[in-house]
């Protein structure tokens, strides 16, 4: 549905996006994750035809955005950053305007607007002037506007910023619901959001995509080792540690995570070396009882920090 190839965009001297390529299939929810200034918003502005790329191309359902912006824009519902709306209009007037631009048949307009406002829980304040709404209410109106007219593709730039925790949960639920039928790209710098609702994640940093795939896959690939925490029963930490250190094939020296009678030890094996089995055999041979053996994976948060700390363009220079 969405294809982007070798996209770059500079603003004067500043290169916001460098050589970005990706594809998004129908019915996927893809998260663009990255710190502020990573180029997420720029990618969205190019996809919606608000800005043209310096080099590279973007296609929406096979339509080249730059060659036929109107054709592409007709397929997209867009919620720009901080969901701008018209403060002088009432919610209903705004939705009527959007319905006109989206060319909904006049006969069903009222019904469609009604349905969309109910879906985004915005029908309670439909006759209020938008300027008087709270941030969360405005955000709902922004989302209502984006899904009006049933566009096949939704582009949501930081849809949950400025919402309270309850609203964030509601919003995520709503986006997941919508994502069942539509292709959604959303940007965020909140890790949990991606883990909660996205099928796939593109992690951006300094204008480049630094990782791509399912959140769990990215974590696995990035991890160069198998890390375990093991809790033993009836042995002191120091004795167990001494014995564990002699186990062959360890990547680095084990450490004590928790002292006490049921100590918790942490150790690492090289990737794909069957470390769990080795640990179990060791415990049996030493007659220790394993109370818990937990493989450690990087959380998306760790990943995010690890990926975005690096500065890819400095390496390229």
């Amino acid at each position, binding site marked *: 549905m969405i294809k982007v190839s070798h996209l770059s965009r500079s603003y004067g001297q500043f290169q916001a996006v460098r050589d970005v390529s990706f594809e998004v299939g129908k019915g996927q929810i893809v998260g663009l994750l990255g710190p502020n200034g990573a180029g997420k918003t720029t990618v969205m502005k190019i996809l919606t035809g608000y800005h043209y790329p310096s080099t590279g191309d973007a296609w929406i359902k096979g339509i080249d955005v730059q060659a036929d912006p*109107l054709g592409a*824009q007709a397929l997209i519902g867009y919620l720009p950053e901080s969901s701008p709306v018209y403060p002088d209009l009432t919610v209903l*007037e705004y939705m009527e305007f959007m319905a006109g631009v989206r060319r909904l048949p006049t006969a069903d307009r009222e019904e469609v607007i009604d349905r969309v406002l109910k879906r985004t829980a915005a029908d309670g304040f439909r006759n209020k002037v938008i300027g008087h709404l709270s941030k969360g209410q405005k955000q709902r109106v922004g989302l209502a506007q984006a899904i009006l007219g049933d566009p096949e593709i939704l582009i949501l730039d930081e849809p949950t910023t400025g919402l309270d925790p309850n609203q964030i949960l509601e919003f995520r639920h709503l986006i997941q619901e919508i994502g069942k039928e539509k292709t959604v790209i959303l940007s965020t710098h909140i890790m949990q959001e991606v883990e909660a609702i996205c099928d796939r994640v593109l992690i951006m940093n300094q204008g480049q995509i630094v990782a791509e795939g399912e959140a769990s896959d990215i974590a696995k690939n990035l991890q160069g080792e198998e890390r375990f925490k093991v809790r033993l029963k009836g042995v002191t930490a120091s004795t167990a540690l001494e014995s564990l250190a002699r186990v062959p094939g360890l990547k680095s020296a084990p450490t004590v995570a928790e002292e006490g009678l049921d100590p918790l030890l942490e150790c690492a094996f090289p990737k794909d070396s069957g470390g769990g089995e080795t640990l179990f055999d060791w415990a049996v041979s030493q007659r220790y009882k394993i109370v818990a053996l937990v493989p450690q994976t990087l959380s998306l948060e760790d990943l995010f920090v690890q990926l975005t700390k690096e500065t890819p363009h400095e390496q390229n220079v």
Partner: protein
Amino acid sequence: MNRMFSVWRKELRSLFNSPVAYGAILFFLIFTAVWFLWMDQFLAQKVASLRNYFALFPLAFIVLVPAVTMRSWADERKMGSQELLLTLPVRTGHLVLAKFLAAWTLILTMILLTIPMTVMVTGLGQFEMGEILGEYIGSILLSGAATALGIFLSGLATNTISAFLMSLGSLLILTLSVTLGAALSLPDAVGNILRFFSLDARYANFQRGLIDTKDALYYVWFAVLFLYLNTKVLILRKWR
């Protein structure tokens, strides 16, 4: 076309949902009527002509047109809604035209609301109806040209105040250049150039009841030029 109509309607709603529109209309009607009847002493003069009344219109437009057009693009940019507007499936040229037509609709409303006043006054004596018709056509065309300029400048400005001031300054020069030029006794060549670009010099012909296609076309081209430039600027920004 339908999409353009939707944008036009949204713009009109935005204009009329704020007090500026009503303030501008009231100011226009009261200012022109009071000045004409009281300051000009129309009733005491016993002259069957509304030329002095219509001569006030370009002066009022110097302030009122910028007040109406200043928010047009500048507000959209400030609030970020421009991004949404420009990513809707509507041609950029149609967006510009819709904004222009909405602002012009408001100005035309002002002009049309003076009809009761003209009808009342013309009942007092033998008035030249051709002259009054020319004056209406002239002020409608003039206001269109001024509105297009205002919309264009609002598109260049980063905030409403600078949009207002830029439009005010430009209209002031374009309206009063001939009068100022005469007062400063500039050379003929300069005076002719000023007269060519002046919005007011051509209006004077309409006021005499002379409807010249050349004058009418000047206003039309003036408006088209600035609407075209407005569209170009918006499209160029996609690259910047």
